């Protein structure tokens, strides 16, 4: 059944949506969207490393993104630059260095557009294994650190005082962020990954009154976006990564009407 490129694309997209839903919630709650962007930009460098040393792209991205995350934490401690300036510095440096390195690798045929915006229709069986295997690991680890991570998201000091070790949870979560970027880059591309994390979650917030509901709706929103995006890209011959994100935006706009209704009911 995985012979058809469209089936493979669907299975890949669905796998990614299951993981971006819960992680996206934490990205929104902890205000990490720009952090996600920075890691995604650094993925380009990861891809060039993979091509240069002929290793697996996902693993290479995961390593480079983790390194960038560690550098960020070190810089935060050792400079007085504000967090957003540091993120911008790293994001654009990593992107620029990645593109420069690609220039040196002129002997390799290379699809930059596919990297920037995703190439879900070119997903192969190996990619599927990485997405579903990696995704399962990410979700299991997230489940294990859920309590301290969530508690420290609500209030760091409370979590620390009551012995939940929030620093360790945060460090592990950072690695999970690098991992989700590594496995989803082929689906929506490095410029749109943060959108996949944030937009279904933003929609979910408009419909939820508990954290659990928000996670569930966020997953459902991601799944719907993948389905609508992929089928419409097939129908109208539009680029698939951007179509998925556009579908997510469409769902978000619909969810805004639900808010209006609740506000009217309250008045």
């Amino acid at each position: 059944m995985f012979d058809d490129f469209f089936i493979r694309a669907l299975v890949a997209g669905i796998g990614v949506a299951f993981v971006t839903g819960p992680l996206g919630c934490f990205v929104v709650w902890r205000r990490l969207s720009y952090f996600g962007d920075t890691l995604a930009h650094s993925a380009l460098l990861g891809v060039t490393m993979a091509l240069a040393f002929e290793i697996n792209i996902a693993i290479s991205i995961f390593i480079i993104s983790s390194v960038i995350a560690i550098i960020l934490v070190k810089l935060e401690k050792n400079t007085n630059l504000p967090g957003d300036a540091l993120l911008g510095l790293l994001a654009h440096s990593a992107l620029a260095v990645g593109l420069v390195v690609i220039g040196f690798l002129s002997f390799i045929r290379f699809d930059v557009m596919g990297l920037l915006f995703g190439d879900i229709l070119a997903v192969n069986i190996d990619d599927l294994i990485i997405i579903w295997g990696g995704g399962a690991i990410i979700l299991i680890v997230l489940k294990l650190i859920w309590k301290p991570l969530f508690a420290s998201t609500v209030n760091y000091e409370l979590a620390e005082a009551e012995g939940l070790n929030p620093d360790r949870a945060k460090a592990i979560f950072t690695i999970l962020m690098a991992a989700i970027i590594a496995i989803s880059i082929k689906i929506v591309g490095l410029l749109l990954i943060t959108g996949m994390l944030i937009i279904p979650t933003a929609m979910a917030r408009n419909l939820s009154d508990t954290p659990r509901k928000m996670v569930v709706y966020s997953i459902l929103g991601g799944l719907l976006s993948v389905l609508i995006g992929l089928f419409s890209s097939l129908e109208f011959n539009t680029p698939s990564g951007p179509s998925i994100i556009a579908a997510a935006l469409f769902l978000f706009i619909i969810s805004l009407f639900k808010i209006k209704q609740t506000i009217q009911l309250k008045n």
Partner: protein
Amino acid sequence: MSKENNILVKLINVGLLRNQKWLVKGVSLTVEKGQIVTLIGPNGSGKSTTAKIAIGIHKNIEGKVEKFTNKIGYVPQKISIDWTLPLRVSDFMVLTENLSDEAINEALSLTGAKHLKHKSLGNLSGGEFQRVLLARAVSKKPELLVLDEPVQGVDFTGEIALYKLIKEISEKLNCGILLISHDLHTVMSATDFVLCLNGHVCCSGTPKDVAMNNEYKVLFGEQASQTLSIYEHKHDHTHSDDGEIKKN
């Protein structure tokens, strides 16, 4: 908990230096089982900092903290819940520890907040929020309860009731309580030990000299003044505006 005595946490000459300024310095205190220790002092006198040192939120401190319990309930001074995080009171109650529905109800009833159980945390008033914070801290039956201005935003009568409740909790759970009050004058008569802070320990002692104040009797009635009283004390020094110590 240490075997030979009931000490829960012991601070020995602790201090915290931030940006070349001592937030607190030279503070020593112990909290024992069943004891209520109250920190008082003006804004910026290091009360919260001292409490945070005691429960290990501040690291890289000077001095030594000996902690003999890990069952800590904490009510922080400030907590803001971001709009992006939909959180009901019942979700908040199980934030750091999974509790049975019964235990949640019991703790919420204790602080008079049971009717808030299914409300969204963002829709609570300041006083309601304090009750929920206190309920959450108590619900896990801690050995050490650290309360950073637990009655802020609570109305006068509610304040007396909450102070009474805190006393009851300390008796019922037989836990130690480290209580912070920004109000220099309002200290519970149930307090076993009072430290007056202003960057350092200005004075401390058992509040046996806590006086029954007539104004409080007038305001809250005879019974209330048994709960609430004034801790009268004199300082042998004053502080200039920048916190420098001036001997009288």
